[in-house]
């Protein structure tokens, strides 16, 4: 299809595992969709849910948070904290009508270059199927609406 929807995906990658995993995917010449915008963070525990909501607000159609496998966190506990946070955040987003499938949290190690590419591919496909985020729709909608009233 010529006008296929290309989702914008923001991904927060932990410096110690997932970012290195992405690097490995690159150096191993494994291709994955270009839809992701990578932001390197020290730890998945650093990813305040605020970042995720902000990404959605500013136009992301999907957000990924990738960290080290449980037990492997460079800071001992960051990914455990992230796990708890996102288990709740997921459910809260779902409750507000933003499909929880748009937020993806998983663990990818530095050696899993191939897996990184698979995860990114699968998630991109998932978000592509969901279509654009309605929130942006309302943002645009309310902008238009208020343009009409205001202008």
């Amino acid at each position: 299809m010529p006008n296929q929807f290309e989702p914008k995906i923001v991904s927060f990658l932990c410096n110690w595992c997932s970012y290195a995993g992405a690097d490995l995917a690159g150096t191993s010449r494994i291709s994955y969709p270009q839809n992701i915008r990578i932001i390197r963070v020290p730890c998945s525990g650093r990813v305040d849910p605020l970042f995720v909501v902000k990404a959605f607000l500013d136009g992301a159609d999907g957000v990924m948070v990738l960290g080290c496998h449980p037990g492997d966190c460079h800071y001992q506990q960051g990914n455990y904290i992230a796990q708890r946070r996102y288990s709740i955040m997921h459910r809260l987003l779902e409750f507000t009508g933003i499909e929880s499938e748009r937020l993806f949290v998983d663990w990818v190690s530095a050696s899993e270059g191939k897996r990184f590419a698979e995860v990114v591919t699968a998630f991109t496909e998932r978000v592509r199927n969901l279509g654009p985020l309605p929130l942006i729709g309302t943002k645009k909608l309310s902008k238009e609406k208020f343009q009409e009233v205001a202008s």
Partner: protein
Amino acid sequence: MTSLENQIRNSARKFLEDGQVSCVIGYERDARGRARPAFIVKADDTERLIWDSDCSLNLVNYLHSRKSPPGKDQPIPKTAVVVRPCDVRAIQLLINEQQLKRENIKIIGITCAGTDINHQLRTECEFCQERIPLIYDVLVEPEKPVELPASQDAYADIEEMESWSSEERFDFWTKEFDRCIRCYACRQACPGCYCFECVAEQVDPHWTSIALEVPEKMFFHVMRAFHLAGRCVGCGACEAACPMNIPLGKLNRKIAKEILELFGYHTGDNSENLPPLVCFNPDERLKI
């Protein structure tokens, strides 16, 4: 005058006369018959104190302005506060978060039959099984004990919304937040919201625009709800304060429901346990 009111007045008078506190925070009636917060500093003024189902704010919120010494070399003021069972949980929360010290507060606990918002019994109160505060210095008791409602699913309304499609839920919230005027009354009335600078107002880093539009309002409410995850006591002060009748409590109740399910945690049970989102269990694997 009801006997509940008498008991509140008498204990307030005693606290003030004995010099145990310098101020009693309770409710009084305004000229139009509505309940509103009252700050009583003289024993004779305790006659103004009232109690009825209109007393829906959480007065613990006002303790934030009395948690530090008013001046150099002065002690932290001691305050008595009239509270419902849910409000007391906020005291536990604030003690846990080292905002308050138990010894500076006298708790006038109400045996609560539920309070109203817009002349309707709050959803939480319909199911509430806790009619007597967990901790108190004085317990205000009615002649007849409050009857507990039949044990039902306290989250029925949330479950109903969960059965909707994403779109329906999105439309629901869009419609509700369209009415929001971003006055921050919900945040200001909440005892758990006491950041010096809220993310909604922070300029650097700049989280959200000053626009009073639906996405910004949704951002604010979702973030506020999340910041209260495991900390919200379900007192309903946010809904009571909202001038536009937005059912904000639903967001908090959704989170409370999940936290109870996942971690078996109920905010304010005591002042020692850490809230679930700031601790972890290495053996747990959650669906995310």
